[in-house]
């Protein structure tokens, strides 16, 4: 049977992707960011996941205002890195897992999570930047990826509680898939940042670290935090952090299993306008 072995949480800042692509990783400003992923690259080398279920959001790239799905699962075979106005990132295409993705869609839709199903889409920095952080420079990504997009652009966006419950349903779906697969679930975006208006540049270090503590120790309690708190305390774009609760909901302890082990934790300010947060939790 397929197993979820770990969950990974990471910011997905576009400037981090640009710094990597332009060979700036050793500049002091960027070195401080990338150093937080040194452990993670080594760890992924040892973990050798077969599939990553990758929760991210599209930033007015593939979805414009003409279509705004709240939750979208990508069941197609291949996804190209998007041209976000600066040309496509020089990273490999993302290879999907149509069979597992369709199985998950079928299972969770029948548990009343009404997903949108997408077969053709280009994936933006929300997905490709965490891949770069975790795997570095590669000719081909070492595993398959099921992209899963959440609307965090137009309010109301889904609540933390809904995301957490969805994560639990996704876990049950993955674990009922008959093939023996090592699956990781990733949550991306955040941490505190605001990209608009006179409050742009907001960073809330204390809140971010409290979020990480609670994500580790009390995810069910954290999931009850209303969306207004994210926006007020972590900035208008800090609302992306609700997506981390999908990945956290997929861990074994949310259904009576043992607490996960914290394999790695990293926090740094700034990368461009944003606080960088990164966490790896392993199922025991």
């Amino acid at each position, binding site marked *: 049977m397929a197993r979820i072995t770990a969950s990974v949480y990471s910011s997905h800042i*576009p*400037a981090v992707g640009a710094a990597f692509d332009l060979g700036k990783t050793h500049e002091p*400003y960027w070195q401080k960011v990338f150093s937080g992923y040194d452990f993670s690259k080594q760890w992924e080398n040892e973990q050798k996941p077969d599939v990553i279920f990758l929760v991210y959001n599209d*930033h*007015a*790239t593939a979805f*414009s*205002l*003409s279509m705004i799905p709240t939750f979208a699962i990508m069941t197609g075979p291949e996804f190209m890195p998007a*041209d*976000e*106005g*600066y040309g496509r990132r020089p990273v490999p295409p993302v290879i999907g897992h149509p069979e597992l993705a369709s199985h998950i869609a079928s299972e969770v839709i029948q548990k009343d999570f009404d997903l949108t199903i997408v077969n053709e889409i280009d994936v933006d920095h929300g997905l490709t930047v965490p891949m770069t952080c975790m795997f570095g420079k590669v000719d081909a990504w070492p595993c398959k990826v099921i992209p899963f997009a959440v609307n965090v*652009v*137009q*309010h*109301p966006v889904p609540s933390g509680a809904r995301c957490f419950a969805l994560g639990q349903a996704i876990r049950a779906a993955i674990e009922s898939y008959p093939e023996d697969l090592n699956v990781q679930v990733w949550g991306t975006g955040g941490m*505190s940042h*605001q*990209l*608009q*208006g*006179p*409050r*742009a*540049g*907001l*960073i*809330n*270090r204390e*809140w971010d670290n409290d979020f990480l503590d609670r994500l580790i120790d009390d995810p069910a309690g954290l999931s009850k935090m*209303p*969306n*207004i708190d994210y*926006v*007020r*305390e972590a900035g*208008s*774009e800090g609302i992306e952090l609700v997506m981390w609760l999908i990945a956290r909901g997929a861990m074994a302890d949310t259904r009576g299993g043992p607490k996960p082990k914290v394999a790695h934790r990293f926090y740094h*300010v*700034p990368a*461009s*306008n944003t*606080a960088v947060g990164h966490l790896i939790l392993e199922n025991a």
Partner: protein
Amino acid sequence: MSLDKEFKEIPGTIIFDAEQSRKGYWLNQFCMSLMKAANRERFKANERAYLDEWKMTEDQKQAVMARDLNAMMALGGNIYFLSKIGATDGKSFQQMAGSMTGMSEEAYRDMMINGGRSIEGNRRIGEHGDAQRPNKDK
């Protein structure tokens, strides 16, 4: 259920909700069109003529031509869409975000390196932080 009114009580912040989205629909869709190189060329060659192809209000067109991001936000723009204008102009996200604060590019960059803007006094309208806009439409 309408959105919690507390979303409107955060200083220096415009929440992109269904109302803003309706107001800014064509402004944002115009921005999306700039993802294509050929459209960027046509826009740069004659901004006014290109904007006139879209069902935008005159205020929205003027705000685009003035590159006034705060005005574009107030008129229904969303920052992820508006950033396509910045990309067309060769501006980074940090330059765009900074331009909305009234700070110089250098001062904004230094603020970020020093840990970013503090939350203190910037949670609710009427507090005394550096992001308060006393004349915000109440």
